[in-house]
């Protein structure tokens, strides 16, 4: 079932974030959302994830769905290592060995047992990404997931993301045209309400 967004509006106090925003997000594919900073991309993703309520409008197709998410921030448990951060969210069926293998695939071999507060920005980002990809989800929400990765690394990580999320609905927010091209699928442009 596609996700259908109808006339969604959101205000913070007097400040309109977006107004009458509508979109269709296809099931089982990648949809990229692009918009200038402050246009309300993160706010929209938070509404999709049920963390925020829209003032008006409706969203269909999210009911009862499991969500995997990479937040705009890493949101890792600082004292835990990458493995523990990941096992924190995933089902018990996934073994420690499997988690280690996935971490190796994204180039985190050797630092899996360090508390994440000691890892670099890019390493933390990859940990957050693997965490989302190994969680139980129908819909994967990614808020600038490749931010802070260097270019050579990025291709590999994007490939990995595509492979792991095959067949699932992926919603990607990014500022980077190249990422959108690489990940394929649909594109939604969100404009600030002022421009409309």
């Amino acid at each position, binding site marked *: 079932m596609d996700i259908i967004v109808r006339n969604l509006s959101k205000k913070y106090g007097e400040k309109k974030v977006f107004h009458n925003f509508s979109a269709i997000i296809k099931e089982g594919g990648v949809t990229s959302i692009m918009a200038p900073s402050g246009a309300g991309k993160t706010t929209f993703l938070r509404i999709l994830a049920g*963390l925020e309520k829209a003032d008006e409008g409706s969203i269909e197709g999210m009911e009862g769905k499991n969500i995997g998410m990479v937040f705009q921030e890493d949101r890792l448990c600082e004292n835990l290592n990458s493995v523990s951060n990941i096992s924190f969210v995933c089902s018990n069926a996934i073994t420690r060995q499997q988690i280690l293998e996935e971490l190796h695939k994204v180039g985190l071999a050797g630092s899996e047992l360090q508390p994440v507060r000691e890892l670099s920005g890019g390493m933390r980002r990859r940990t957050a990404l693997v965490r989302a990809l190994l*969680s139980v989800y129908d819909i994967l929400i990614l808020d600038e997931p490749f931010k802070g990765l260097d270019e050579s690394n990025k291709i590999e990580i994007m490939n990995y993301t595509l492979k792991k999320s095959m067949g699932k609905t992926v919603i990607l927010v990014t500022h980077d045209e190249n990422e959108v091209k690489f990940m394929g699928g649909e594109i939604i442009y969100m404009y600030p309400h002022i421009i409309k």
Partner: protein
Amino acid sequence: MTFITTDRANKTEVKIWAVLLWLIVWEIAARSIGQEILLVSPVVVLFKFFQLMITLEFWQSVAFSFLRIIGGFILALCVGSFLAAVSSVSSFIRELMQPLIAVMKAVPVASFIIIILIWIPSRNLAAVISFLMVLPVVYKNILEGIERMDRQLLEMAEVFKVSHLKRFRYIYLSQIMPYFKIASSLSLGLCWKAGVAAEVIGIPQGSIGEKLYEAKVYLQTPDLFAWTFTIVLLSAGFERLYLIVVDNLVKKVERG
């Protein structure tokens, strides 16, 4: 989250040479005064301390006061944490607690001691006083810890539908622990001071406070100092041990 950086810890660390210097100053002062009743030499205090230590009565008094003061401390730790947890979810309970906690913080220990003495026999006075001193400290610190909890992590756990047990183990525990430890350290110092003060006033038989009182009455200054030394050792020693146990427990729970 660390509140005391290694840098600051080094600056506040007690250096052996400074301790020795002060001990020498003390020794010189005691010798030049030359009257044991006024100021007793550190060597005599240490000697007296070892003399006391080989008596059964010493250990009985230590056990008597220790059990009561630490008993009050542990009870306050449990009740304080529980009340803080309840207050964090219910503004009614929180508002209800506010005046009680404010009173506990504002009333002088001496007044508490005398009031409580009117109500209960002096035997368990130290436990009640220790409890009353520790409760507000624990309550306020834990409540602050809960309030400063990282909302972003809680949201993350919510989105991924992480079980409440896991949330408690990996998010709540590690975030509240620093506050819990600060509260414990603060109140361990407090409860010994207040607990012994209570015993000196209530003079329960077989307590450390009774020994201090007797030393005062019979002008046995070496005993007074030796018992004081004992209290400081007990208080500091227990704090160390306590923090080690807490750290290990937390590690165990987090590592699973």
